[in-house]
């Protein structure tokens, strides 16, 4: 397949691995921020191929995983009200809230539907004017523009029966939270290429300067990740801390200006609690007052109820890169994809699920490492 196979070439991968081996002289811990990158690493077994000096830890970049439980509860509660059609991406439906997930709510009679895009939800609202169609919008800056576009169109069409629960979050505050935490062990970051394709590079420069930490904007194919690791390791070995762009084929310095301008019109940044990462200042996107009519939280007077958060699941440590999923006592024993304790075991991009499905063969090798 053109433009895909080239970035999965085993010969080129070996050359990059040789380059990494020739570069590293001491141990380095590098975090890949995005869950899609974690998935590629485990799918291709890159963690098994890298020299033992390089430890990859998995970041908080799985939108399903960091969505706080109270937000999920709120969506479930809303879905149970008469006249409501709640739409979201497939992954989101299986994430457990306090008492059940959205699939359970659907089985119990709620009108919950899987969509591939917020624009599909908008279309549903046009087709079914008697239903209140609510899109549960999760995701990083990558998916936020499509939500912004849906709200923008709803406003232009004056569509009275469409609204969104905006649970979008931003990457830079998460990197800042990780790198500034007391027991941080991450020395370099592979930033999420698709997020930067939208947002550009500039908001990462202050992080590099303030924390003296290398950040390499990296793509999602195996060669992208190996090249990102090579670039990051070269910086670490040389004592440099710079912002570099590995993913030049998709990421421009300024990002996608039309997407950014639409986002600026529709969203404002707010503080929000992330699952496992605390309340992060300016880490989330909420609708501006001008578009308040399309904000389901305001339209339906939804209240964030404090949720019960027991301690069996150590997703918080996993999401902060302090714990590898197999090191969690619950992993694969009481916590499995069919009975997940936490969101990272649910989503395809969740680190725990990635390890469960792809990584179990290599666990022993990894623990030895």
């Amino acid at each position, binding site marked *: *397949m053109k433009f895909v196979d080239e970035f*999965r070439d*085993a010969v080129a991968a070996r050359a990059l691995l040789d380059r990494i081996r020739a570069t590293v002289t001491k141990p380095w811990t590098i975090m890949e921020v995005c869950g*899609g990158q974690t998935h590629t690493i*485990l799918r*291709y*077994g*890159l963690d*098994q*191929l890298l020299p033992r000096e390089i430890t990859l830890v998995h970041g908080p970049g799985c*939108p*399903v995983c960091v969505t706080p*439980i109270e937000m999920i509860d709120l969506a479930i509660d809303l879905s149970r009200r008469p006249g409501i059609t709640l739409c979201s*991406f*497939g*992954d989101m439906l299986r994430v*457990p*809230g306090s008492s059940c997930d959205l*699939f*359970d709510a659907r089985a119990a009679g709620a009108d919950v539907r*899987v969509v*591939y895009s917020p624009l599909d939800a908008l279309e549903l609202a046009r087709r079914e004017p008697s239903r209140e169609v609510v899109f549960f919008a*999760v*995701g990083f800056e*990558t*998916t936020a523009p499509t939500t912004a576009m849906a709200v923008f169109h709803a406003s232009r069409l004056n569509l009275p029966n469409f609204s969104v629960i905006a649970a979008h979050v931003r990457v830079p505050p998460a990197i800042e939270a990780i790198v500034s935490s007391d027991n941080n062990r991450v020395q370099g970051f592979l930033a999420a290429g*698709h997020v930067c394709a939208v947002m550009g590079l500039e908001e990462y420069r202050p992080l590099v300067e303030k924390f003296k930490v290398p950040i390499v904007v990296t793509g999602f194919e*195996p060669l992208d990740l190996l090249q990102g690791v090579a670039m990051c390791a070269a910086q670490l070995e040389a004592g440099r801390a710079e912002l570099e762009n590995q993913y030049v084929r998709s990421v421009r310095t300024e990002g996608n200006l039309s997407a950014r301008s639409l986002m600026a019109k529709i969203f404002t940044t707010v*503080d929000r*609690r992330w*699952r*496992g990462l*605390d*309340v992060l200042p300016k880490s989330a996107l909420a609708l501006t007052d001008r578009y308040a009519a399309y904000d389901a939280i305001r339209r339906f007077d939804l209240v*964030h109820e*404090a*949720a*019960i*958060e*027991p*301690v*069996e*699941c*150590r*997703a*918080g440590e996993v999401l902060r890169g302090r714990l590898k999923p197999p090191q969690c006592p619950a992993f694969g024993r009481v916590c*499995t*994809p*069919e009975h*997940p*304790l*936490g*969101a990272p075991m649910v*989503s*395809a991009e969740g680190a725990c699920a990635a390890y469960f*499905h*792809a*990584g179990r*063969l*290599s666990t022993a090798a990894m623990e030895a490492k």
Partner: protein
Amino acid sequence: MNTRDRAVSANSDALQCPLPSRKNDLIVLGHGSGGRLTAELVRTVFLPALSNPILDRLDDSAEMSVGGSRLAFTTDSFVVSPLRFPGGDIGSLAVNGTINDLAVAGAQPLGLSAAFILEEGFPIAELRQVMQSMREASRAAEVPVIAADTKVVERGKADGLFITTSGIGVIPGNLELGPERAQAGDAVLVSGPVGDHGIAVMSAREGLEFEATLVSDCAPLHGLVSAMIDSGSVIRCMRDATRGGVATILNELAKSSGVEIVIDESVVPVRDAVRAACEILGLEPLYVACEGRLVAIVDEAHADRILAAMRRHPLGADACRIGRVTRRGEPRVALRTAFGPTRLLDILAGDQLPRIC
């Protein structure tokens, strides 16, 4: 930051994550995925009620001896949405699906029954089209529908049309096939590219359009199976890779035989259009359903001869070897990636879900 947030934040090192609620008091869609939830339902609800030595084998077809003949019997329900998709419809699927469950048991199908559940308001013209398609599939396969039933339910109580077919066939006297027969050293064969049906249906359902039209692989496999058996080679077991795809049935076979199976990712045949669709949707082709492909585990010494026989048949033209049974021991299926490392190819909990970004 409000008071509650502060309380949560003070407690942030308590590593929060929700305890799940998954007691599954109600049926969820995942129970129909063919994955772990389906297996759980079978184990905890169906088998306790209906257990007997034939059913407990959980084979594609049940085998019974009647008057010195070996009969295979099977049943399957079809609830596909939309009813029509590129390469077939619910009618051809209902005929071929049940024929294939008989075929992979090594049986020559004798006849089918068909039961129709119709929703009030369903257009008769559409039913005629489905029947035309069943008739063509039945004729092409030379397997007649010899018994049928119809029920109509109120509008809203079904989704247009559901079909259940059952089938009966005869197994040749000396044929020994079974999911428990795989042995270390055996070859794993697949009869053609995987995932065509699942992606064709998904594209039709979601209105996804690709440059090349994807067509379901829906087809009756008993002719291909006959050709394989007639080659005089040792076949250990066969499965048609429907719900849950090749990965799921390989896991079932590994479990029944108590063996490890290793698949070589770089040789698994997947059409470009299927790969592209899977890339876009975040799906794994090895878990996507086929309706006209079988996986066979065969004696390595006979593998080339069986492959040659398969390739001479139109439905096996692209047959190839995708892996082997490596050893007796902990049942599992592993995938050797193009880069060299091996990873587990597990059974999924429920349906594959399209990813967010």
